[in-house]
């Protein structure tokens, strides 16, 4: 499936800022599930810094903008040919040891309610069948947290989202990461895009990858009750949403910042 991505982020400042620095994880890697046909990232008045591929296989690129400037736009445009690999991340080059993804973070910390959510699954499915465990944990997250845009915020933790019983893809991903790590399975947050067609959903999307012995990393998307397929474009991964963020940035100059994000993912006409 050939998908086109248009992703525009606009930062507006209440007063011009002196400078802005960003770190981007905004370029998809090549692997069996996706082939990048064209990809371009542009930053208004921006100077690109050094680029490199990190140990997780993600391309990282620094940017700086020297002000004074009151509005900065980050534009991402590209075409990707995607293939359904049933969620299995094959042919993706990475050197980070999966054990690194057993460490928890503030956003993915377990609490008693999350442990209760995992308990029946872990009782019924033994540790010798990690794939079934992962599927069942993912289903448990889908059942416990309803998809409801606006129910949570960027800082919401997995435990808070479960208490609320509602959230967005970020919350689903965090909750599943917490449960998987609790079950001793390395798990990570994946940021990317999704083609939703006429269905409601999030074009700027996030899901979870769980490391299954024998298979490697396998994607699970509790928000859509499925594993990633040809509708998904994978950008990069991390321990949680902050660690995997496609854009991390900071402006110097002390003005208030507002941010607009517009993402469109279309299926190209064959």
């Amino acid at each position, binding site marked *: 499936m050939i998908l086109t991505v248009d992703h525009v982020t606009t930062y507006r400042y209440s007063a011009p800022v002196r*400078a802005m*620095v*960003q*770190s981007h994880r905004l370029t998809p890697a090549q692997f069996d599930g996706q082939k990048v046909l064209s990809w371009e990232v542009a930053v208004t008045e921006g*100077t*690109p*810094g*050094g*680029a*490199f*591929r*990190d*140990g*997780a296989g993600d391309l*990282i*690129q*620094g940017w*700086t903008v*020297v002000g004074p400037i009151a509005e900065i736009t980050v534009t991402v445009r590209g075409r990707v040919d995607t293939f359904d690999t049933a969620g299995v991340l094959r042919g993706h080059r990475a*050197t*980070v*040891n999966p*054990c*690194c993804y*057993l*460490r928890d973070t503030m956003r993915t910390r377990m609490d008693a309610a999350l442990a209760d959510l995992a308990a029946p699954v872990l009782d019924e499915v033994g540790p010798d069948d990690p794939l079934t465990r992962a599927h069942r944990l993912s289903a448990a997250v889908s059942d416990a947290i309803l998809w409801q845009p606006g129910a949570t915020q960027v800082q919401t933790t997995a435990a808070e989202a479960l208490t609320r019983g509602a959230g967005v893809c970020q919350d689903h991903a965090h909750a599943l990461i917490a449960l998987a790590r609790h079950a001793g399975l390395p798990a990570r947050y994946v940021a990317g895009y999704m083609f939703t067609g006429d269905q409601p959903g999030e074009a700027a999307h996030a899901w979870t990858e769980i490391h299954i012995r024998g298979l490697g990393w396998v994607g699970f998307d509790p928000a859509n009750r499925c594993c990633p397929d040809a509708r998904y474009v994978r950008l990069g991964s991390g*321990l949680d949403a*902050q660690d995997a963020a496609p854009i*991390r*940035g*900071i402006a110097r100059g002390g003005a208030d910042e507002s941010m607009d994000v517009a993402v469109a993912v279309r299926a190209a006409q064959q």
Partner: protein
Amino acid sequence: MTTYFNEMYQDGAVRAPYARLNGWTNAMPAELRQMKQAEAEALFRRIGITFAVYGEGGDPDRLIPFDMFPRVFTAAEWSRLERGIKQRARALNAFLVDVYARGEIVRAGRIPARLVYQNEAYEKAVVGFRPPKGVYSHIVGIDLVRTGPDDFFVLEDNCRTPSGVSYMLENREIMMRMFPDLFRENRIQPVDSYPEILRRTLASVAPLKCDREPTVVILTPGHFNSAYYEHSFLADLMGVELVEGQDLFVEGGFVWMRTTEGPKKVDVIYRRIDDAFLDPLCFRPDSMLGVPGLMDVYRSGGVTICSAPGAGVADDKAVYTYVPDMVRFYLGEEPILQNVPTWLCGRADDLKYVLENLAELVVKEVHGSGGYGMLVGPRSTADQVEAFRHRIEADPENYIAQPTLALSTVPAFVDQGIAPRHVDLRPYCLVGERIELVPGGLTRVALKEGSLVVNSSQGGGVKDTWVLAE
């Protein structure tokens, strides 16, 4: 009753390296000694070398006590220590290169994956990046204790930013000023080349992209940091700029320093701030101490950070137990310096032993430092031991235990005259293109009678450390 090795007196005789000091102290009347002690204190106060004690409140400008009685090593003693220290520094760096690449030592089953990859100090962000010359830890501080004429043990390794080297230099400076005769009578190897060797070491690991004489800076968290004096002292002696995060910025794949003549490119940053605060775009987003975008420049080869981010995974107290194995695994050599036998409370058998013998052991937190959060069993009350037992039981993974070592003593000036006090030693090994060690280090002394805790935060003092020429 434990007997302690006294480095000056053995079997009623004065050991050779201290021969000339015997006459020196005998000839010094008490009034002169008090006068000299006051003079030393005034000198330290004047140069502003003070030490703020974490978490204790009180006077932040308290002087660290200086004991005028030097500690002496022969050239032969030092030569063995030097080989052992350099060997250890090479092994620690080889380990760091390995665990951020293929992790051969883990694959070979020589160290558990969990200890490395789930370690808080392991930085996933630098996996796959090889720092210039393959060096992660450029200044390795190795804490040593002695229990006999030829018995030295490594207490811990410090691979991040070991502090205290300014005391090594100042102690020598002050001793030379106050007792010039001593330095004529004894052939003492100099330590004053340290700042120049440090500068050369840092310059030798400049990025490949640097095509001129490298610009080196020291990055400090600021004047409120307890080691700020040392940061400015070293910058001064090396002739490099002392900067804070706000003095640096990132642009076009390089790091720049703001100067009155405009931006100047920086090639090597000797940072004295922790990984977590280096770059809000990679680590803690709320950090104001670091430089936004620094890690992207670092990882794309635009600047070198010393010590390399992630170096801390080699000096954690649980990883410590595996350092002798690192020496064998990477260097194919037998370790010259021994570890102190260590029980990891995270292991069931070890925990059982520790809890059964708590009153005899020293117990430390895995990530603790500065002598805080530790139990010295034989010096504690039964209540203190019991209280500590509960802490260990609540979180065994967080504790290690070691036997109470019979730390050697060196004479120290005390109110009653001269008395033996326990000491340790921290030499500073420099690793760049070459591995170098100045003949000396920081001797810390537990000035409280009977105390085995030498940390300055716990009433410890410092001494000048001599290595005699052949």
